[in-house]
C-alpha cells in the first residue's frame, strides 16, 4: 500500500457536510458504448469491421470508409502523452472543488487522439502512457492515462482516487459476516486498510468454523442484523447508518431445487426474502443517509456492493428459484444504482459462478473459493468497475450470454 495517501484529518463537526456534486454526465447514446467496457474495466473503442480503422470520439459511421459496422473492441491502451495541461479553472462545481486537475492529450498506438485524466506520476510530454477506461463519480466512462510501468494503482494517486471506492480509512458494513464469503470479505477489507468493519450476523446460536476468530479481530464490531426483518435492519441503520461508508451485502439464501423438485413456494419465498427483499430493506434503511454523505470529506460514503450470482443473468434450472431471486435482486440493484448515482455512490454488482460452499457441493469444479470472491470485491473497490464476474465459470457464462443469450438458455437447460 502506498504511503502517498495520508490518513485524512478528523471531520470538523462544526462545518456543514458538503452536498455531493458530479462531473458532467451528459453523453450521446453512441458515446455510451464506452461504458460497456468500462463497467468491467476494459478500454473498448470503436473498430470498423469493414476497414479496421479505430476511432475516437465515438461516431455513427467509420471515419475512414463510412461503414456503419462498428465494433467495440478492447484496446491495448498503449500510447504517448503528446501534450498536457493542469487546469486551475473549471466551469463545473465537481472539478472546482478538486482543482488543480491534470489532463493529457494522448496519441494511442492505434493512431487516435484521446483527452484523458492524467496521472500525476506520468512524466512530462512526450512520455509513454497506458490508457485505461474507468468510471467517474457520475458513473460514466472516463479515460485515464497512467505511467507505463511501476506501481500505478488508481487509489494511490490523490486525484485519481476520485474514480475509486478505496476502502482505506473507511468504515464498512458486511451484512452477513458469518458465511464463508462474509468472513473472507471482513478479512480482505481490513487488509485493504478499512478503519473498521461492522460484521453483521443473525442466528446467534450458529457458530460456524472461523467465526470466533473473526469476532476477535481488532477493528471488527459484531452487530446483529437480519435482513429478512425490517425492524432489525432499521434499528441497525438508526444506530450506525450515518457512519457507514461502504455496504457489502453478502447475505444470501440458497437452496438447490428445480421447479418440480419441491412443492410449494416456501423455499422460493425464503430466497426472495433474503436475496431480493433483504437488499430492498437495506437500501431503504441505509441508502438515503449514505446519499447525504456522498461528499463527506475524503472518507465519504462511496460504494454499495451486492453479492449476486451469475445465475442472475440467465436461469440455471437446477437452482431455479435461487436464480429467480438473484435476477430480482439484480433488478433492484439496477434501480439502487440509479438512485445512488446522484450522490456519486457506486453500486457494484458481483456475479460469481458457483462458490465452493455447502450448497454447491454437488457441482463439479471449477468453483470459487470464498477468498477469491472477497478479493474480487476489494479489487472492484480499489479500482473503478461496477460489474465483476469473478472466476472461470462466470467469465464463460458472461461470454456466452453476450454472444447469444438464447443459446445460453438452452445450454443451461440441458
Amino acid at each position: 500500500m502506498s504511503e502517498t495517501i495520508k490518513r485524512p484529518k478528523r471531520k470538523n463537526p462544526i462545518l456543514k457536510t458538503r452536498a455531493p456534486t458530479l462531473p458532467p454526465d451528459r453523453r450521446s447514446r453512441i458515446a455510451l458504448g464506452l461504458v460497456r467496457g468500462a463497467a468491467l474495466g476494459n478500454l473498448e473503442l470503436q473498430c470498423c469491421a469493414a476497414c479496421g480503422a479505430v476511432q475516437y470520439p465515438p461516431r455513427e459511421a467509420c471515419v475512414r470508409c463510412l461503414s456503419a459496422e462498428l465494433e467495440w473492441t478492447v484496446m491495448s491502451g498503449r500510447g504517448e502523452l503528446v501534450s498536457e495541461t493542469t487546469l486551475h479553472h473549471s466551469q463545473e462545481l465537481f472539478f472546482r472543488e478538486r482543482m488543480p486537475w491534470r489532463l493529457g492529450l494522448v496519441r494511442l498506438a492505434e493512431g487516435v487522439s484521446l483527452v484523458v485524466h492524467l496521472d500525476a506520476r506520468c512524466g512530462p510530454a512526450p512520455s509513454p502512457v497506458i490508457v485505461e477506461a474507468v468510471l467517474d463519480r457520475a458513473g460514466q466512462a472516463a479515460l485515464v492515462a497512467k505511467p507505463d510501468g511501476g506501481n500505478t494503482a488508481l487509489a494511490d494517486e490523490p486525484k485519481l482516487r476520485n474514480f475509486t471506492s478505496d476502502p482505506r480509512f473507511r468504515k464498512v458494513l458486511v451484512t452477513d459476516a458469518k458465511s464463508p464469503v462474509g468472513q473472507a470479505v471482513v478479512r480482505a477489507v481490513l487488509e485493504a486498510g478499512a478503519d473498521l468493519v461492522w460484521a453483521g450476523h443473525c442466528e446467534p446460536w450458529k457458530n460456524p468454523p472461523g467465526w470466533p476468530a473473526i469476532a476477535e479481530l481488532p477493528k471488527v464490531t459484531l452487530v446483529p442484523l437480519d435482513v429478512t426483518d425490517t425492524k432489525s435492519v432499521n434499528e441497525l441503520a438508526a444506530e450506525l447508518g450515518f457512519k457507514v461508508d461502504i455496504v457489502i451485502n453478502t447475505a444470501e439464501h440458497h437452496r438447490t431445487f428445480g421447479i418440480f423438485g419441491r412443492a410449494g413456494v416456501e423455499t422460493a419465498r425464503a430466497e426472495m426474502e433474503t436475496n431480493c427483499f433483504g437488499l430492498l430493506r437495506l437500501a431503504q434503511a441505509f441508502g438515503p443517509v449514505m446519499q447525504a454523505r456522498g461528499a463527506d470529506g475524503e472518507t465519504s460514503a462511496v460504494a454499495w456492493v451486492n453479492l449476486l450470482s451469475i445465475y442472475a443473468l440467465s436461469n440455471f434450472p437446477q437452482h431455479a428459484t435461487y436464480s429467480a431471486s438473484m435476477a430480482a435482486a439484480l433488478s433492484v440493484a439496477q434501480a439502487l444504482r440509479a438512485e445512488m448515482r446522484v450522490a456519486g455512490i457506486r453500486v457494484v454488482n458481483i456475479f460469481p459462478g458457483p462458490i465452493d460452499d455447502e450448497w454447491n457441493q454437488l457441482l463439479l469444479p471449477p468453483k470459487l473459493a470464498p477468498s477469491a470472491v472477497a478479493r474480487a470485491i476489494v479489487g472492484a473497490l480499489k479500482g473503478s468497475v461496477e460489474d465483476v464476474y469473478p472466476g472461470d465459470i462466470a467469465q464463460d457464462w458472461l461470454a456466452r450470454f453476450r454472444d447469444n443469450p438464447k443459446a445460453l438458455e438452452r445450454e443451461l437447460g440441458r
Partner: protein
Amino acid sequence: MTNRIAGYDGVAVAVPVTVPYERFSIRGAHWFIARALKALVDGAGISKDEIDGLCVGSFTLAPDSAVGLTQHLGLSPRWLDHVPMGGASGIVSLRRAARAVQAGDAEIVACIAGDTNHVDSFRLSTATFSMFAQDAVYPYGAGGPNTSFAFLTAYYMRTYGAKPEDFGKLCVAQRSNALQFPHALFKKPLTLDEYLNARPVADPLRLFDCVMPCAGAEAFLVMSEDRARRLGLPHARLRGAIERHNAFPDDPVQHRGGWVMDRDRLYESAGIGPEDIDLLEAYDDYPVICMLQIEDLGFCGKGEGPDFIRRHTFEANGSFPFNTSGGQLSVGQAGAAGGTLGIVEALRQVTGQSLGARVENARHALVSGFGMINFDRGLCTGAAILAAT
C-alpha cells in the same frame, strides 16, 4: 491545386458596424442583431426593405435561426443563410454573400454576427458545444476551450521553442491598440509583467491568454461596387477569400491550420503576396492561434512564429500592424461576433474610417477566421483580403 476559381470582381464590402459590447447582458441575441441591422441600414442610408439578403452567425439565438429573425425583424429577403461556424462565420458569410451578389441572387446582403452573454451562458454553451465536446472533452475537467488551447500551446512551446514572453508581446501590443478603440471592454494598459504574473488558468495559459466572453454584435454589408458607389458608401473590394474545414485530421496535435492548404489560392486570386499585406486581423481567442495564422498565412515559415514576433512590433503603427482594434483578447469575445470583429476592423482601416489606432496608407488587409473547437482542435479556417478602392 484545383482549377482556378472565379474571382470576386465587382464585390464591395461596406458599412462597418459594431454594437457596443457588454460583459453580461439581460437581453437576447435578437436585440444585438437588431441593433446591428438598424446601424447597417442607417449607415447605408437605405430602408430595411432594400436588404434582400441576410446572413447570420450566432450561438445564442436558439431556438431561432436566421429564419426566425426574418419575421422577428420584419425582413423578406430572397436569400438567407445561417452560418454556425463561430470564429470562421464572418469569413464564410462574406464568401457566400459575395457569390450571391455576383450571381444576382441578392443585391444587398447584411452579414451580422451577434450574441448575448448571460451570467451562465458560457458554461451552458461549452457543456454542449458539440457532440464530441460533450462526449469526450467537457467531462474532463470542464475547462471549455481553455483545455484545448492549453494542449496546443504547450505542444507548440515544446516543439518550436516559443516562450511566454512571445505570446505576451502580442497580448501587450493588442492592449495598446485597444486603448484607442472606443468599444474595447479592456480600458487599462497591460504590461508584460502583468501578463506573466497573471493567475494560471490552464497551464501554460494565464488569465490574459484567454478571451473574455461578452455580448455584442459586428456587421457589414455586401453589395456590388456599382451599388456602393451609387449609395455613396466608402467600401473595400474583396480580392480573395478561402475556407477549409477539418484540415490535417491526422496531425496528433493541431500545429497547423487549414490556411496552409488554401493560402496560395488566396494570394493568387488577389494577385499579391504576404509582403503586400499592410495589416493582419487574425482570430485571437488565444495568442497561440495568432502564431499559427502568422505562419500558415505565409508571413514566416512553420515554427518561425516566435522569431517573427521577436523581430516585429504589432501596434497599429508598428512594423507589422496586427489586430489593430485590440482583437478579441482586449475588446472581448461577443460569441460568433468574434469572427466578424476582424473583418469590420479591416474594413474601417482600408476605407479610412478607423475608430481608433490608424494604420497609415492601409491598402491591403488580410482577415483570418478560426472556429469551432470540436474535440481536440478547431475545425474551420478562413481568410479574406480586403483592398482599398
